[in-house]
């Protein structure tokens, strides 16, 4: 029997009106990767916050033992000195600083006068990077790194504090598949160096690959802990949602009708990068169709939908025709008026006014419909808001609940509601299921089906290939700003998509 480095017994945490953790018990064996699975709101993040000292010891009931010593964390610092480090889904790096400056931020070695010993900072960072085989330059600016590399900086930062237990809260949510593979390799390296990892992810394929054991959470309770060899993916899903899910991707094909949007030979200039980020893109999408866009991070998928929506880049050449009208993509308002709507990949940055309520956000893009003689018709607006709130099954007390306090899945539903309220004929969904739980994902898929059955078209951008294959009718793979391949989903495989994604570049 391996040594237990951490034990949680009968942990209960209450928020006003909510039981966030309900008598949770759970343990970590030295050097294992232990996955936590569960829908959003199941209690995983609350558990992480108890373990890392974000919630002080007197705000919950139950015991936490670290290496046979009872933990009494009052601050994050207490957890850090007990060897517990956390990597959050949202990165907390200073973009304008170098890798080494970020790694040592708050821990800068100084001489007696308070002058920072910069040579030591850079040398120690370098040796730490070498120890874990990380391919990073301590002097690069974090702003110049990709998301995946930034994640590595966070991990190095945690390792610096002699972390023996690393808690990773959805570390791969923003990563492409190749970046995920790198991260998984690093976790294996950490494991070989004796670091115990807790791995939270919605991506069960990763969990099956990397974890030794998995504990499933549902409604604040720990349902079961299993060795990964003794449990199938379908069983984990069943434990998470409490019911069987026969089909992960319930795409119901409808018969595509007339062409809705046609793009011919589109080349777009990116003024920030000072180069052409898209070159010679041509495609057509018909009403009732789901067109998937795949490709690696930086291949130009987001740039493409943002440009078509009038929110990014300068048109160098090419033509975009939507419902017979030529589009010049000068501003999102023109795109919305032409019947397009975008659901951005970054809902907090581009989708929501977090401090405002659900209703405010849902109707923001459709206010013209509720205005008469310049005045807003609050009643008609509220009625429309409540209708969508109900039909999308947003979990919140009412439409006056502040959006910032909702879970990721429910926030995403608010963004979707905003898009639906504009009554679009073409919807761009950019990573619509990123960071949301299995149940909410299924609802998003169901929504895609409903949209196409109503004769609307969906452009689906996704980094998850099973999702692309499962939910699209056709798939176009972008590679370095060009079309790398076009497939009929029913006949395509993940290998073909991956090959197409790396065909240019």
């Amino acid at each position, binding site marked *: 029997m391996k040594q237990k480095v951490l034990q949680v017994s009968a942990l209960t945490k209450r928020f006003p009106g909510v039981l966030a953790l309900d008598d949770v018990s759970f343990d970590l064996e030295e050097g294992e990767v232990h996955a936590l699975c569960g829908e959003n709101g199941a209690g995983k993040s609350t558990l992480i916050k108890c373990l890392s000292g974000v919630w002080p010891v007197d705000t919950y009931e139950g015991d936490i033992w670290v290496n046979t010593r009872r933990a009494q964390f009052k601050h994050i610092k207490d957890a850090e000195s007990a060897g517990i480090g956390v990597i959050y889904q949202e990165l907390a790096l200073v973009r304008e600083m170098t890798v080494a400056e970020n790694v040592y931020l708050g821990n800068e070695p100084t001489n007696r006068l308070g002058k920072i010993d910069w040579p030591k900072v850079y040398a120690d960072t370098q040796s730490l990077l070498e120890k874990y085989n990380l391919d990073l330059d301590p002097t690069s600016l974090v702003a110049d790194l990709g998301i995946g590399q930034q994640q590595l900086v966070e991990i190095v930062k945690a390792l610096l504090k002699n972390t023996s237990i690393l808690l990773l809260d959805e570390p791969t949510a923003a990563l492409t598949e190749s970046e995920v593979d790198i991260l998984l390799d690093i976790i294996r390296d950490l494991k070989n160096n004796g670091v115990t990892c807790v791995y939270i992810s919605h991506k069960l394929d990763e969990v099956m690959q990397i974890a030794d054991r998995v504990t499933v959470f549902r409604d604040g309770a720990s349902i079961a802990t299993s060795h990964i060899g003794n449990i199938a993916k379908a069983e984990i899903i069943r434990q998470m949602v409490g019911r069987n899910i026969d089909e992960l991707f319930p795409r119901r094909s409808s018969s595509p009708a007339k062409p809705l949007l046609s793009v011919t030979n589109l080349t777009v200039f990116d003024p920030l990068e000072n180069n052409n980020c898209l070159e010679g893109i041509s495609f057509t999408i018909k009403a009732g169709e789901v067109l998937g866009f795949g490709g690696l991070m930086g291949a130009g998928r987001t740039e493409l939908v943002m440009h078509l*929506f009038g*929110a990014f880049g300068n048109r160098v050449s090419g033509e975009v025709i939507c419902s017979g009208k030529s589009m010049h993509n000068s*501003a*999102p*308002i023109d*795109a*919305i*008026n032409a019947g397009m709507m*975008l659901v*951005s990949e970054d809902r907090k*940055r*581009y*989708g*929501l*006014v*977090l*401090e*405002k309520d659900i209703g*405010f956000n849902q109707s*923001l*893009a459709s*206010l*013209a419909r509720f*205005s008469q003689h*310049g*005045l*807003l018709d*609050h*009643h*008609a607006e*509220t*009625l429309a808001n409540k209708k969508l709130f109900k039909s999308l099954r947003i979990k919140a007390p009412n439409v006056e609940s502040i959006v910032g306090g909702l879970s990721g899945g429910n926030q995403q539903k608010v963004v979707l509601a*905003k898009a639906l309220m*504009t009554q679009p004929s073409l919807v761009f969904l950019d990573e619509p299921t990123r960071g949301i739980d299995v149940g909410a994902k299924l609802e998003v898929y169901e929504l895609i089906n409903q949209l196409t059955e109503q004769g609307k078209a969906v452009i689906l951008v996704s980094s998850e290939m099973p999702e692309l294959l499962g939910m699209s009718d056709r798939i176009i793979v972008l590679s370095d700003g060009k079309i790398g391949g076009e497939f009929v989903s029913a006949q395509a495989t993940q290998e073909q998509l991956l090959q197409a994604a790396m065909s240019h570049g």
Partner: protein
Amino acid sequence: MNQTKLLRTYSMGIALVLIWLFFTVATDNFLSARNLSILSIEMAVTATLALGMLLVLLPGQIDLSVGSGVGLIGGIAAVLIFNHHWNAFAAMGAGLAVALVIWGLMGTLIIQYRVPAFIITLGGLLVFKGLFWKVIDSETVPVVAGAGDNALSLLTTHYLTPAQGFLLLAVIAFFVIRASVRQRSQRAKYGFELESSSTAILKIFVALQALLLIILVMNQFRGIPLSVVVLGIVAFSVYIITMHTRFGRYLYAVGGNKEAAILSGVPVKKVIIGAYVMLGGIVALTGFMQTAYSGASTTTIGNLMELDAIAACVIGGTSLAGGRGNVLGVLIGALIMATLLNGMTLMAVAPETKFIARGTVLALAVWLDVYLSQKAD
């Protein structure tokens, strides 16, 4: 709502009551009809400007130039009337036109050419002050040429007769009741929850009683000051704009998350320029009132008024980061700032102490709000 949240919502109202209690005890005549009348005129000037400031703070901008603008626009009107013998209405119209153009230009520079509002309007503060002194030639220019009154001077010297005051109350009561009845029937039509009719009647009754009390007190002196009526119109307009128009909703959206607003089809540039143009109009109006209140345009008119306006907004719960704030809060904030100045003047407090006291109250108010909001979470 928990207790802390309630306390936060009403904290500035409670603070106002405490400040009034303090001055009532500390001075002999704070609550006299004459002093309340003077206070209402002073508050009208501060609050009008603060409501304009609210329009640019909501979308996350700021304007430091309004104080100098108040002096400049009032000065233009006074010079046209006294030196060039213009009709007062024409002079005010000219001043208003200048203000709309200037603030439209500043708004354009800020959003079209991406120069931060802080810098553009800090420049405006200095430039307008210089222009102002050039316009009045650094002298004292009366608002009336010769004897008698004109439309400009009457802004702060005209009072409604008692009969007119009661008529005003009747008109307001009619519209408030009609709006309430309409709203209830609408809500019933859509099947929304209705508050009980007795609660609704009680609310309207209390509000009208409060209004009646104000009119009775004002009638004891000279009647409702015209400048208070002006404030009422401005406050009602800004309330309608912020709460009942698309433009108002966009102000909050731009301040809350500019990028999300752009992707929701909000015409951000138009919204920001529109907010500055409206502020320009209010600056002109405040310029006329403040200059009329002094009786003449002199180099000190408008001094530091931008800070009073920002302070009133912030005390009233407006966020300098944008996205949060409302008319009622700004009115309470302006009344607190005006009360402090008025009460300390009655107590014959030295000018240096007045500055220190006002600054301290501003800092305390914001600290209290931050403290209560953290406790509420």
